[in-house]
């Protein structure tokens, strides 16, 4: 069946901001789909609110909308673009839910938009648990005892029938939000209420518990000819009861016999047919009783998923690409296997290696919640590794995690009393290290661990063998170690780093001796067919053989050009996510443009960068010196390496740059990077340039802390000298405050001295600046003004481009200072600088990052220019002059539209955690709003980050004393817009004195009915709540938490509240337009380099976007313009 000619324009929906349970795997799937369908000649309309993604790169789709993912927005886009079809199966649950919503609103019918991939009825069938259950019964397939309920009393009745423990699964939610296991009757009503609330349809499935059963997933593809293949079977090491996103998983399946597996495969065919998924990929989850023949189907997703991204990387079979091609009519046998280029895609991949995925968590940022795993996903990222045995792949995955500790060795933060069976039984997130330690100390047996965790003994035995050999290694004398020991250790997956610890010998000596013993990893190609056919696709990994053959895999050499090696950013984590992948992928393109070969190294299976289509060669390896050196050696065998790119892979790559040969590092010299990163050295840079930074002191002993703080004067900012995403940062406002923090320090043994104490600039405006340099010239790309005041981590702040309130003189000062800093650091490549502007209008340098920043993708999209390319080309020797690069406009008046970045937080996933923002980053993802003025852009950013803003109703206000004066204007504005104001009695009295009509309400401690009751009862439509003192924070915690849980929009800084209130009128009037990036009026376009490199000639204003006056804009946020 050839491709459909009756379709011309196809709409693809992305998955929005990165959240727990929905991460950049959907950027990978969406990007593949866009590329594949464009190559087939279709016109692609793409919608996604996330500016950090590759898929929203304007070069990719024909029309790119960075707009909120709501049915309303989608309808507007459909009305403009009139697509023939919608492909909703590649944008995760968000896209699927939107497709259903559009169908329910009649939009798809009105505009005659056909749904490709899965039909609306089949989406509903798979997603609606009751319907799915009935279908399984009809197909005679085994399922759990269960019942769907819509209210509490039915739930209690159903629980009686099913028995405890039972599992709650709210319908239509991501990553199992609101779900969980209930062990007894007394827990039931609370948990059930929460679950009902989490489901947009107030529907919850109660289900018999299969905790401890084996969990298996199959990735299935079907085409219009009803041909089906299972791409990959994935086994969860952590059995049922732990969300598969939080489980360590592996492929191929290891503990099932062929018949046990084929049984699942047969049922998969029936399910996919039964649900009616016409074409594309889907994922089916099974649970198998480890002690009998019993097995059941848990659920199916009629779309590509996190697991299908993993399966694609694990096997080399590009599920999303194929899903897109199948959706437009091709059949599997008409498509060639992407890897062999000869055999057809209608086959099932086989692999001659083991793939292990390990999740990465961020519990340390949410310390108020217990770090326990369950049926709700908590992990923020993952790594994948390939090895030629389970042990090797398993240890390699742990080496890829970048957690600071080495492999399976115990992190030093652990307390001995926690290392016990009880901790692992409670499913603490770090239990694999605990299990390793229990086996190491011989305080528990495999049987005991199995009993506590239900993890299959085969895996535990493998772990025990690793630990046994680790102990044997530790007993050896390094001098006596030879090739035999090295080979076995490497076979077991021990990294040189771990061996260095075990042998108490410097890493360099370990590596040198290993090399002398000629123990070297073999190159392996990922080929989908276990070597049966020749693979043409350059996707590689390294692994050690016991008896390596003299006939290794070879990289086919064809007109080999100089290579540039790009270091990726590793697992996603809070503070380092998809935005760095964007930079790596764009770098690969820029490198190839100049005629070099791009070589990618990364270990994150969710990413676009690990798509083998992006680079000339992909090495799926941990981002560690040892592994990189092996890659360099291989690359050197057949060609010259031009250099290593360390500036686009976030902190991970930058840190590696300091360990590698400085001559090989591209761009800003290694020594200059050190000058920027090392605090003492950077202080000297600032002194030399006569630039200000907040006064600061280094504290080496906890005893000195109090004195130093007092001398600097409160408020102060305390942080460790090395930080990522602001971990362990505190703003301390008083000595009392300090005492409390000191207590937490005493329990957190991973706080490393020295600590840095900065004077904190209260109520300062924070500014993010991105620059590029070509060794000589420095160009400032953007001056972004944060909405939230300094003190809120820049990754958690909203920001506006152009700036809102800065005077042209200040912008000029920022520009000059940035150039001065860039020149001083011999900037070649990228630089991000954070400034603060104090109340006295003084400019302070907060920090510099000599690399591509988190904001760079946002800047590229907001300015319509591929700055990554400009920076990379500069690093590779092409000066800005040669590039004919024109600096972009920086003054607000020169902009024709506003772009606002806002963020999303994972607070809902972490019960008991306060939603207040601070210097420690907590957000997982970002969105962008584009508008003709700040109001429109900011409002769209708020909507895109799931703020369900009211158009009328009641607003609750309760602010700290220092904010009260500024509250007046907000309240007057709200009143003028027709909102009713409610405040706690203190705030109410203050406002009344000023003549503002406001209703009073009890604080929680003042007795019921109080504010939390009102929030839960739906009487409050928006919350503005700022706090400072400890007691106020704890008093008002329940207000913020209940607002979060009931979905009431809340603001915890007055600056954000003010911006929101000022933007509300536009929203109320419904004046939010949609615009494709391709039709935005970017300043000064020229076509010299393909994309939007600017001349300063002013373009006309084709869509009349410049209607707001400069005056209103710059004064928008009430800040002085000069």
């Amino acid at each position, binding site marked *: 069946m050839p491709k459909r000619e009756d379709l011309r324009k196809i709409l693809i929906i992305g998955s929005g901001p990165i959240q727990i349970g929905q991460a950049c795997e959907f950027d990978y799937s969406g990007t593949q789909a866009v590329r594949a369908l464009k190559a087939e000649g279709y016109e692609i309309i793409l919608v996604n609110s996330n500016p950090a993604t590759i898929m929203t790169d304007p070069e990719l789709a024909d029309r790119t909308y960075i707009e909120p993912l709501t049915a309303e927005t989608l309808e507007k886009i459909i009305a403009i673009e009139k697509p023939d079809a919608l492909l909703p199966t590649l944008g995760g649950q968000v896209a699927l839910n939107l497709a259903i919503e559009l169908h329910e609103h009649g939009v798809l019918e009105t505009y005659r938009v056909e749904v490709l991939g899965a039909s609306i009825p089949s989406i509903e069938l798979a997603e609606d648990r009751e319907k799915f259950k009935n279908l399984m019964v009809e197909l005679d397939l085994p399922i759990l005892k269960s019942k769907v309920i819509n209210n509490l009393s039915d739930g209690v009745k159903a629980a009686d029938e099913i028995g405890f423990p039972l599992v709650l699964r709210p319908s239509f939610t991501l990553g199992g939000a609101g779900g969980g296991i209930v062990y007894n009757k007394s827990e039931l009503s609370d948990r059930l209420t929460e679950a009902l609330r989490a489901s947009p349809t107030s529907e919850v499935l109660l289900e018999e518990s299969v905790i401890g059963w084996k969990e298996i997933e199959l990735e299935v593809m079907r085409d219009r*000819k*009803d*041909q089906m*293949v*299972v791409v990959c*079977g994935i086994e969860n090491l952590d059995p049922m009861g732990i969300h598969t996103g939080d489980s360590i998983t592996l492929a*191929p*399946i*290891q*503990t*099932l*016999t*062929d*018949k046990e*597996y*084929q*049984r699942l*495969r*047969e*049922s998969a065919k029936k399910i996919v047919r039964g649900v009616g998924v016409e074409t594309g990929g889907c994922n089916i989850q099974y649970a198998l009783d*480890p*002690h*009998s023949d019993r097995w059941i189907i848990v659920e199916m997703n009629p779309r590509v998923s996190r697991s299908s991204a993993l399966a694609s990387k694990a096997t080399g079979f590009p599920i999303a690409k194929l899903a897109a091609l199948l959706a437009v009519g091709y059949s*599997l*046998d008409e498509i060639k296997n992407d890897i062999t280029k000869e*055999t*057809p895609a*209608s*086959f*099932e*991949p*086989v*692999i*001659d290696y*083991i793939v292990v995925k390990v999740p990465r968590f961020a519990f340390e940022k949410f310390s108020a919640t217990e770090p326990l795993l369950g049926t709700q996903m908590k992990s923020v990222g993952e790594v994948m590794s390939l090895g*030629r*045995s*389970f042990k090797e792949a398993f240890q390699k995955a742990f080496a890829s995690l970048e957690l600071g500790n080495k492999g399976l060795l115990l992190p030093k933060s652990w307390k001995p009393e926690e290392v016990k069976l009880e901790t692992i039984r409670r499913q603490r997130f770090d239990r694999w290290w605990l299990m390793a330690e229990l086996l190491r100390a011989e305080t528990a047996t*495999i049987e005991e661990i199995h009993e506590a965790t239900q993890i*299959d*003994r*085969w895996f535990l*035995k*493998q772990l025990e063998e690793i630990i046994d050999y680790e102990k044997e290694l530790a007993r050896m004398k390094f001098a006596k170690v030879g090739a035999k020991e090295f080979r076995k250790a490497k076979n077991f997956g021990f990294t040189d780093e771990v061996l260095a610890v075990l042998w108490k010998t410097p890493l360099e000596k370990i590596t040198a001796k290993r090399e002398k013993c000629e123990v070297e990893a*073999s190159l*392996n190609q990922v080929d989908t*067919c*276990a*070597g*049966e*056919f*020749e693979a043409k696709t350059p996707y590689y990994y390294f692994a050690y*053989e*016991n*008896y*390596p*053959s003299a*006939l*290794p*895999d070879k990289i086919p050499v064809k007109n080999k050009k100089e290579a540039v090696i790009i270091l990726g950013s590793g697992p996603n984590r809070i503070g380092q996510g998809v935005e760095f992948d964007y930079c790596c992928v764009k770098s690969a393109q820029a490198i190839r443009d100049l005629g070099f070969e791009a070589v990618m190294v990364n270990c994150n299976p969710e990413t676009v960068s690990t798509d083998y289509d992006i680079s000339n060669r992909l090495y799926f390896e941990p981002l560690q010196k040892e592994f990189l050196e092996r890659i360099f050696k291989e690359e050197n065998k057949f060609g010259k390496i031009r250099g290593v790119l360390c500036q686009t892979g976030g902190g991970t790559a930058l840190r590696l740059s300091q360990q590698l040969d400085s001559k090989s590092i591209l761009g800003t010299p290694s020594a200059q990077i050190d000058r920027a990163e090392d605090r003492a050295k950077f202080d000297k840079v600032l002194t030399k340039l006569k630039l200000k930074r907040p006064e600061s002191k280094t504290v080496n002993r906890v005893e000195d802390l109090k004195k130093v703080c007092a001398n600097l004067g409160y408020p102060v900012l305390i942080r460790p000298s090395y930080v990522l995403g602001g971990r362990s940062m505190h703003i301390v406002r008083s000595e009392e405050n300090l005492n409390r923090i000191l207590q937490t320090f005493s329990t957190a043994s991973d706080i490393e001295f020295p600590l840095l104490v900065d004077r904190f600039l209260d109520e300062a405006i924070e500014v993010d600046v991105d620059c590029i340099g070509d060794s000589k010239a420095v160009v400032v790309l953007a001056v972004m003004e944060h909405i939230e005041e300094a003190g809120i981590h820049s990754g958690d702040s909203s920001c506006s481009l152009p700036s809102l309130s800065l005077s042209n003189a200040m912008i000029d000062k920022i520009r000059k200072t940035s150039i001065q800093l860039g020149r001083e650091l011999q900037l070649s490549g990228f630089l991000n600088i954070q400034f603060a502007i104090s109340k006295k209008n003084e400019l302070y340098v907060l920090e510099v990052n000599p690399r591509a920043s988190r904001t760079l993708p946002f800047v590229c999209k907001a300015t319509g220019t591929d700055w990554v390319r400009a920076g990379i080309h500069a690093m590779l020797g092409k000066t800005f002059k040669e590039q004919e690069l024109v600096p972009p406009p920086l003054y607000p008046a020169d902009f024709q539209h506003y772009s606002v970045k806002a963020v999303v937080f994972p607070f809902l996933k972490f019960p008991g955690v306060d939603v207040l923002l601070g210097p420690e980053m907590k957000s997982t993802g970002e969105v962008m709003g584009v508008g003709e003025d700040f109001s429109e852009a900011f409002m769209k950013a708020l909507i895109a980050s799931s703020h369900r803003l009211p158009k009328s109703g009641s607003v609750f206000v309760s602010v700290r004393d220092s904010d009260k004066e500024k509250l007046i204007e907000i309240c007057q504005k709200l009143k003028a817009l027709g909102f009713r104001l409610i405040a706690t009695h203190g705030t109410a009295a203050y406002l009344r004195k000023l003549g503002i009509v406001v209703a009073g309400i009890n604080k929680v401690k003042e007795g019921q009915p109080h504010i939390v009751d009102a929030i839960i009862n739906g009487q409050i439509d928006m919350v503005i709540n700022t706090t400072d003192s400890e007691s106020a924070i704890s008093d008002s915690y329940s207000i913020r938490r209940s607002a979060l849980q009931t979905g009431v929009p809340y603001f915890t800084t007055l600056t954000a509240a003010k911006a929101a209130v000022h933007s509300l009128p536009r929203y109320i009037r419904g004046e939010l337009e949609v615009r494709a990036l391709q039709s935005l009026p970017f300043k000064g376009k020229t076509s010299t380099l393909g994309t939007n490199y600017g001349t300063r000639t002013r373009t006309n204003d084709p869509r009349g976007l410049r209607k707001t006056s400069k005056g209103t804009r710059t004064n928008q946020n009430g800040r002085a313009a000069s």
Partner: protein
Amino acid sequence: MASKAKPGALLLQDGSLWRGLSFGAKTTSVGEVVFHTALSGYQEILTDPSYRKQIITFSSVQIGNQGFHSEDFESKRVWASGCLVRDYSEPLYHWRKENSLDEILKQNKTPALSGIDTRRLILHLRENGNQWGVISTETDDLKSLKKHLQKTVSMQGLSLTQEVSTSKMYTWTEGSSALLNSPITTPANKRVVVMDFGVKHQILRYLIDSGFKEAIVVPAKTSAKDILALKADALFLSNGPGDPAAETEIVSEVKKLIGEFPIFGICLGHQILGLALGLSTFKLKFGHHGANHPVQNLRTGKVEITSQNHGFAVSAEEIAKHKDIEVTHLNLNDQTVEGFVHKKYPVCAIQFHPESAPGPIDSTFTFKQFYEGNFHI
């Protein structure tokens, strides 16, 4: 066992030596070195009589994890001459595990090596073709291994069916119950004769599942006359080892049976039917041994994912010249013939393994067609 394992080795006819650690029986044996790419099913593979005189390299890296279970034997014993794996592990627990692979190999006097660089060995076989080799768990000394390979041997021309066939006729009545899509239809009185060239249990189970009341399994060398005397309703030609062209006696008996009743052949049975119809067979470079081969069913146009195990194939050019034979199945990887029917006689031949074991069970309906005696749908 792994910690005290002795070094062993595999020597190929082309002189390449592949070292590993011994497990299984302490012995030395020779055979054709082949590779199998299935992800699961080492027990079914090792006990399949078609692997007689073959040393199997498993591409899947972890072997042994689930042990051996009585219901997964494809015959009474291990037939392969040896077993090469990347990483062997003892099954610690599987709810139906009865033995470990190591124990079973010891019982069957089969040598095995772990730690083999299986990927490079497979690439080597892919490039240079399957070839004879010697596997030893007694020595890794090149000289002594060489002695076993002095005589140049090849699978070509080797008749092996006598070695694996039953010596006495027996009746099989057990169906399969483990699989989902095994349709147990209304009981009938039809009987099928199975010529045993090394038949797999799963084939017999599927014959029963498809509706036959019983399968009468006869030795490979049973004459056409004796088969006809059994007055059965259908004839099945089984899978088996060796070169089909070497089975001239069997071919001439089968020739006499064509047209007498519906005949269905799988694997070696397929090749023998081809030879009996005047076609020829040839040896593939490295054969098809896996569970993921796309085969297009030319009647439905649909691809079935198949289980494969054969080193020889029926010539496509000759079929094209034969006006009464229609190719029904095509391997999409290399366009070789995977099945045919005779336009006049009820004869159906399938090269791959619709009974799977191991592998996908996409094609079991062919058994149903056989039972109904209608291959032309």
